[in-house]
C-alpha cells in the first residue's frame, strides 16, 4: 500500500489542468415528435379508459371523471400534454378506486337484502333502495311488521317491495 501511494504522488501533474474544450452546443433543436406522438396516444388510451369507467358507473353519481380544459382548440405544448396525461391518469385511478369501493358496498347491500328476505325479524325497519345496490329506479326493500302494531307485538315481520317510481302527476289543477 505505501508503494502505491508513493507511485500516485509521483505521477506528473498537469501544469494548467485539463485542456479546456468548448461547451457542446446542439446543432439542431431536439425532435419532440416521438414524445408528442407517444403522449397523444396515451391521452387517447386514458380517455378510452375514462369513458369505459363512466359507462360502467352509470347510474351512480359523483364519480369524478372531469378533467379541466386547456383553452383549446389548439396544439398543446409538450409540458401541457404531460400535465393532461397525468391528470387523466389520476382521474382514471380515482374513478376506478371510487367505483371499486361503491361496488363493494353495493354487494354488501345485496347480501343484506337476501338476509332480510330470509330473516325479516332480524332486520326490523331496515330499508334498502335500488340506489344502494347501484341500479336505476325507485324500487326499495323495507322490513315492516305484518298488520301494523299487532305484528310488532307478535314479532311478525315481512319485507315489502315497492312497485317502483311514483307516476308523474303533471302540472296545475285538473279542469
Amino acid at each position: 500500500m505505501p508503494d502505491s501511494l508513493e507511485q500516485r504522488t509521483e505521477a506528473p501533474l498537469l501544469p494548467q489542468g485539463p485542456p479546456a474544450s468548448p461547451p457542446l452546443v446542439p446543432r439542431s433543436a431536439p425532435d419532440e415528435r416521438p414524445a408528442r406522438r407517444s403522449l397523444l396516444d396515451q391521452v387517447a388510451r386514458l380517455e378510452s379508459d375514462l369513458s369505459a369507467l363512466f359507462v360502467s358507473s352509470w347510474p351512480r353519481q359523483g364519480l369524478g371523471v372531469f378533467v379541466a380544459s386547456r383553452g383549446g382548440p389548439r396544439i398543446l405544448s409538450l409540458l401541457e400534454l404531460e400535465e393532461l396525461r397525468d391528470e387523466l391518469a389520476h382521474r382514471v385511478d380515482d374513478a376506478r378506486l371510487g367505483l371499486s369501493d361503491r361496488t363493494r358496498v353495493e354487494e354488501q347491500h345485496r347480501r343484506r337484502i337476501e338476509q332480510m328476505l330470509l330473516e325479516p325479524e332480524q332486520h326490523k325497519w331496515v330499508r334498502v333502495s335500488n340506489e344502494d345496490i347501484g341500479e336505476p329506479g325507485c324500487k326499495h326493500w323495507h322490513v315492516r311488521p305484518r298488520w301494523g302494531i299487532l305484528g310488532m307485538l307478535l314479532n311478525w315481520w315481512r319485507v315489502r317491495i315497492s312497485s317502483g317510481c311514483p307516476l308523474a302527476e303533471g302540472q296545475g289543477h285538473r279542469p
Partner: protein
Amino acid sequence: MLDPDLERGWVDRELAEEFPALALWLVRVEAGSGRTPDVVRRRLRQLSNRITGGHVIHMRQDPVPWAYRVFWRQIGIDPDTERTPVEQIALDRLRHGGLRSRNLLDDAITIATFETGVPVLALDADRVGSAIGLRLSRNRELLGGAGRPLSVRQIVVADEDDSVALVSGEVDDARGVTRSTQRMVLGAVQVAGVPLISVEEALWTVADTVTVER
C-alpha cells in the same frame, strides 16, 4: 340527386405532423337555408324518438363519437364541458324532450351529425375564398379577420386570407350562412378513427336535405 363532388381541403404542415389523420372535406352546394319543410321536421321527430338515455350514456364508447371525444381532449378541450356536436345534440334531446326545429340548414346538420357522429359546419360560399383548409392561428389574429381575437396556435378553418371558423365548430358571423345565402360550402373534419365513408355520408346527408327536401 347526384352525389356532390367531395374536395379535400389543405392542412398546414405542422398540424399534419401533429395529427397525421386530420383532414378537412368540403362539398359545395347551390342552396341556402330557410324554413324547415314538414318532411324534414318529421325526420327530426323520428330521430328524436330513437334517442334514449341509455343510448346517450353509451354514445361515448361508439367508435366515431369516441374518436371526436379523443380529438377534443388532444386539442385541449374538455369534452364533458364543451361537448362534441353529436353528444350536444343527444344531451339537448334529453333536456328538451325532443329535437327542436330551427331552420333547414341547422336541422339538416342535426340529422347528419346524429346519424353519422361527424360534425358538419356550413359557410357562405360567396363570403369565403376558394381554397379552404386547416391551419394554426397567427399572432394577434382575429376570427374572420375582424371578429373576436384568437389565442395563438388555435386550430382554425381558414381560406387564403383569414380564419373563418374554429375546428370545434364556431363559425365567424360574417362567413356563416344567412337568409341571403345562395351557395354554401359544407365542411367536415375527419380525425383518427373516423372512416371516410362516415364523413361522406354526413356531408351528403346535409347536401341532400337542403337541396332536395324542400
